[in-house]
């Protein structure tokens, strides 16, 4: 049936029962908007979680001496640090060397095991945002070798405030007793379980002095200068630079978060499907009604020699027109709302502060993120579900027997 203009015919049929078409389109559009906003919020949440995981501590990629990850020993360290750092920087990476040791911290009558973290503040600032995450007091300052910044829970365990003193006792690399007195310069906001409970940040110079550890570092945390580039490629490049060492990206280092992010797409699809079941019934109902009230008309058309495919195409085209209209509305409104939420996230600070998720702190302000997936996945599924819902009515119309249809009352 090449020559009947199905599209214009279908459009007129859609406009024929304006109210029903409008209600159907609005129902589809409404579900589409909800799903776009939901998907954008979900993407925003995941993006924030990923950024937190990476930006607060991990960085994109880390370099360790072989074996350090399994057994974090003071003597297992990266040797040619400065050569590596300059090579990494030449290749467009930010890199921060870190020193780690374990010790006992005591304040008044309380004590706790801590993980000493010796950092180079200028370099650390290029890789992570931890310096901006101070809750009370201030971040480390070069020259102030007595000043330390500690995790929130550790501060509570030790019962210390900003300005209080903490005694550190441990074993230095030469076997002597490492023992010194520090002053709390700052207390961090929630970052993640490890840092909250045992994080003890100090200047690298102070660490080297305390632990008698003159050279080498335990970890180099690396950040891509442009986070939109491919992580896998960056990792390969770093492997070329520092092949002798263990290279891990943040997904290896934070497998729980990585897994949650992996599963998020499946979750999104499931949510969309569940919501759309309701829409599917609306669509099914509308299309069925439109078929049943035209039984006589379809019968006449069949008597004139119209084949079953013609009617199937007609009904699908009619539905397509409605889905198309609904998609435009959903995209426009959904994008608008999601974009507003991207600019100003939902502020949850009154109900949730210092929450954490998979060991990673989350912001009290929940931002949306308008990604292509958040916009088009809901629309794609709308089209899919819509067409599924139309199969039954379309088949019904296709198999109508003209005699029965024409005398159908």
């Amino acid at each position: 049936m090449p020559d009947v203009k199905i599209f214009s015919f279908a459009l007129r049929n859609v406009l024929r029962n304006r109210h029903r078409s409008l209600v159907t389109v609005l129902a589809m559009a409404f579900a589409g908007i909800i799903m776009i906003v939901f998907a954008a919020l979900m993407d925003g949440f995941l993006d924030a979680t990923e950024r937190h995981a990476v930006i607060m501590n991990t960085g994109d990629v880390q370099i360790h001496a072989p074996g350090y990850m399994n057994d974090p020993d003071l003597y297992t360290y990266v040797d040619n640090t400065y050569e590596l750092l300059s090579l990494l920087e030449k290749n467009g990476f930010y890199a921060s060397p870190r020193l780690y040791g374990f010790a006992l911290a005591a304040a008044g009558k309380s004590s706790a095991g801590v993980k000493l973290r010796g950092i180079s503040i200028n370099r650390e600032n290029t890789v992570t945002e931890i310096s901006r995450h101070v809750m009370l007091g201030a971040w480390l300052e070069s020259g102030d070798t007595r000043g330390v910044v500690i995790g929130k829970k550790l501060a509570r365990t030790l019962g210390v405030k900003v300005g209080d003193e903490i005694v550190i006792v441990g074993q230095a690399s030469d076997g002597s007793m490492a023992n010194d007195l520090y002053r709390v310069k700052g207390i961090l906001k929630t970052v993640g379980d490890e840092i909250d409970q045992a994080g003890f940040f100090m200047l690298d110079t102070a660490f080297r002095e305390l632990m008698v550890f003159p050279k080498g570092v335990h970890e180099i945390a690396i950040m891509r200068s442009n986070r939109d580039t491919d992580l896998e490629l960056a990792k390969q490049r770093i492997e070329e630079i520092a092949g002798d060492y263990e290279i891990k990206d943040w997904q290896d280092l934070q497998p729980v978060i990585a897994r949650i992010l992996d599963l998020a797409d499946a979750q999104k699809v499931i949510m969309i499907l569940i919501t759309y079941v309701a829409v599917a019934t609306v669509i099914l109902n509308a299309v069925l009604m439109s078929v049943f009230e035209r039984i006589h008309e379809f019968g006449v058309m069949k008597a004139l020699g119209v084949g079953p495919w013609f009617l199937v195409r007609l009904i699908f085209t009619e539905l397509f027109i409605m889905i198309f209209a609904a998609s435009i509305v959903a995209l426009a409104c959904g994008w608008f709302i999601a974009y507003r939420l991207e600019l100003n996230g939902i502020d949850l600070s009154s109900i949730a502060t210092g929450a954490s998720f998979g060991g990673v702190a989350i912001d009290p302000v929940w931002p949306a993120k308008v990604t292509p997936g958040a916009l088009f996945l809901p629309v794609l599924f709308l089209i899919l579900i819509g067409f599924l819902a139309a199969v039954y009515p379309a088949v019904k119309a296709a198999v109508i027997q003209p005699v029965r249809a024409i005398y159908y009352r």
Partner: protein
Amino acid sequence: MTGAIVTMENVTKLYEQGKIEVRAVDNLTLTIQKGDFAALCGPSGSGKTTVLNLMGGLDLPTEGTIHIEQQNLSELSRSQISNMRRDRIGFVFQSYNLIPVMTAYENAEFVLKLQGVPEKQCHERVMNILAEVGLQGLEHRRPDELSGGQQQRVAIARAIVTRPAIVLADEPTANVDSVTADALLDLMQELNRVERTTFLFSTHDQRVMDRARRLIRLRDGRLEQDEVRA
């Protein structure tokens, strides 16, 4: 030139109505000749509509054979029958014949488009036919902007625009007033005379029967009388 357009041989059509079997058509043998202007008449339930549906391939007989232009319907597939209807048969039903969202012009054009007739040729033929049935100037009205008689004229135009072998009309005048009915009959008679289009219509209306050149009377699905007048 004469010749058989449709032949029915010993055709029986049974319908199940609950547990009762109804013989809508009972062992009927009937031939419609080219150029016929024939009326099927008989009391309600005598099988007129059923005969028309069987002849148009809208329904299949329980027994017997039907030939349309020498083609045995029972040997054709569904889609072949559908194409046969499209190309060789014109239908006019009692009411609601037209596609409501299409204009008079588009309704008349519909089957031509299905046949894939080129646009230019379509236009010419549709405009001619609409003029012939007296609808000049109303081409762009939709069915709900036309009177019942005008709607039936569009239906007749649509039935004849493809130059079918036969036009089957089931009580085409039942839903219009007598003046309009007369006009519709004038029209069909004229088409029959000028274009030699074969018409078979069913009717209850005595005046319609009076104008038929052949009167086929049915009773209980059987042929009671088949009279050809001068």
